[in-house]
């Protein structure tokens, strides 16, 4: 590891900046980010380059591409060694908390309830779910914020992510948007809902966000529920406070049932508000059998 005389008087961060700019300038002198920022940086850079060439045994007159690449790599390495290492896994987990982790880095697992209702279609559908999470057309994340920051939407401070992806079939009626809802735990995305939305039965025009898309779906396939004293709805946003034993409890009262014997799938996801005991939740109540009958009528295959 070479120790450059020209930067010995600088703190490590400033010295790393000087080396990084030297590397950028050498790699692409048209990039203004490589211009000097500190007083006398041009002279410092000259000293660094002379010292580096001597260290690598490269003549001053050698301006070949190979040598240039060698010098650039050496500068990058030297800059890297000046800074304390980044804990990449911890940083990526922190990005996940904020809803800023690239979605193709998530380990996607499907909740047992989703596995159960998909039944024999689980294997094929889980491929579509993974595609939707890892390469979505749209995504929306609710986060707990950092240091008490509020989330960006009305449903705040819950580690929920929604993803949508359009799957085209050669038969137009079979094309659909898959809407996936997941709860983030570190680098894991636990899928709690995966719903096919066919645009001829659920109007997606003017959908303002994915939560809106989910609500429109429940308008078609939902059934009203009430939580505690709430007004019945198929799509509820509610706040709950744990009891003295730190347990959450609520009673679902199903207000409507369109067909006798149909299964009603109540799905709830949410999280605690930072610094508070309250739990904020989105609750959807879907007539599962009505939905599954409909998807069955369209066909599960998307060929």
């Amino acid at each position, binding site marked *: 590891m070479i120790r450059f005389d020209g930067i010995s008087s600088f703190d490590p*961060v*400033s010295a*790393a*900046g*000087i*080396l*990084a*700019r030297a*590397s*950028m300038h050498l*790699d*692409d*002198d*048209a*990039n*203004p*980010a490589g211009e000097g*920022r500190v007083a006398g940086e041009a002279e410092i850079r000259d000293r660094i380059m002379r010292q580096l060439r001597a260290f690598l045994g490269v003549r001053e007159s050698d301006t070949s591409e190979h040598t240039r690449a060698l010098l650039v790599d050496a500068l*990058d390495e030297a*800059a*890297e060694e000046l*800074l304390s290492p*980044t*804990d*990449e896994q911890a*940083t*990526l987990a*922190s*990005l996940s908390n904020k809803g*800023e982790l*690239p*979605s*193709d*880095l998530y380990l996607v697992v499907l909740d047992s309830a989703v596995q159960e209702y998909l039944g024999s279609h689980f294997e094929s559908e889980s491929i579509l779910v993974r595609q939707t999470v*890892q*390469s979505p057309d749209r995504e929306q994340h609710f986060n707990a914020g950092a240091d008490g920051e509020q989330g960006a939407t009305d449903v705040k401070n819950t580690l929920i992510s929604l993803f949508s992806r359009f799957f085209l079939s050669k038969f137009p009626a079979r094309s659909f948007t898959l809407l996936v809802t997941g709860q983030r735990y570190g680098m894991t995305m636990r899928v709690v809902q995966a719903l096919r939305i066919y645009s001829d039965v659920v109007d997606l025009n003017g959908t303002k966000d994915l939560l809106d898309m989910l609500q429109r779906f429940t308008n078609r396939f939902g059934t009203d529920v009430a939580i505690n004293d709430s007004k019945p709805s198929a799509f509820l946003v509610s706040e709950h406070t744990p009891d003295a034993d730190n347990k959450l409890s609520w009673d679902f009262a199903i207000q409507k049932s369109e067909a006798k014997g149909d299964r009603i799938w109540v799905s709830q996801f949410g999280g605690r508000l930072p610094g508070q005991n309250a739990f904020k939740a989105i609750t959807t109540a879907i007539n599962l059998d009505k939905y599954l009958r409909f998807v069955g009528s369209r066909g599960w295959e998307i060929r």
Partner: protein
Amino acid sequence: MAGPVLYSTNSWIAHEFATRYRGGSHFVWCSEHYDPHSAPAGSAAAAIAPSSSPKGIYDTLRGDCDREDRHSSLIRGYRKTFLRLAKTWLADKSISKQQYDEIVSTVKSNSWRIWRPVLFVIPEEPVRSRIVHVAHPGRAGYGPEMQIHDLKSTEFDVIVL
């Protein structure tokens, strides 16, 4: 004088970093020709190098991402550039150590999604006074190439082809 619209292909993560860490100020290379190679032979546009063609960069980057090409020279170059930029931004205190770590962790991760191309469509008139016409040694070819050093998020549309 440049045409009424300028085009610039960038990686999605470049747009994201500019939005998150640079107050929405983007550094871009741009061209008034989306596809210089469809320009008439002998024209200035036809002399733009393939590596400076917005369409060329878009198609190459999309292909590299779709095929998850670990030897992609474009992605390798972008990764190195962001690692260097992160150090200079940390040194001038325009980002914190936490933000530096986020940039490093993101570009070093296994994500392909972050490198997907996006096209900036830039109306020329509002940015005309800030266009930098790059002199020949700094260009990849003989055709005209331009930079804008401080393009604001409100000054362009982002398109995914």
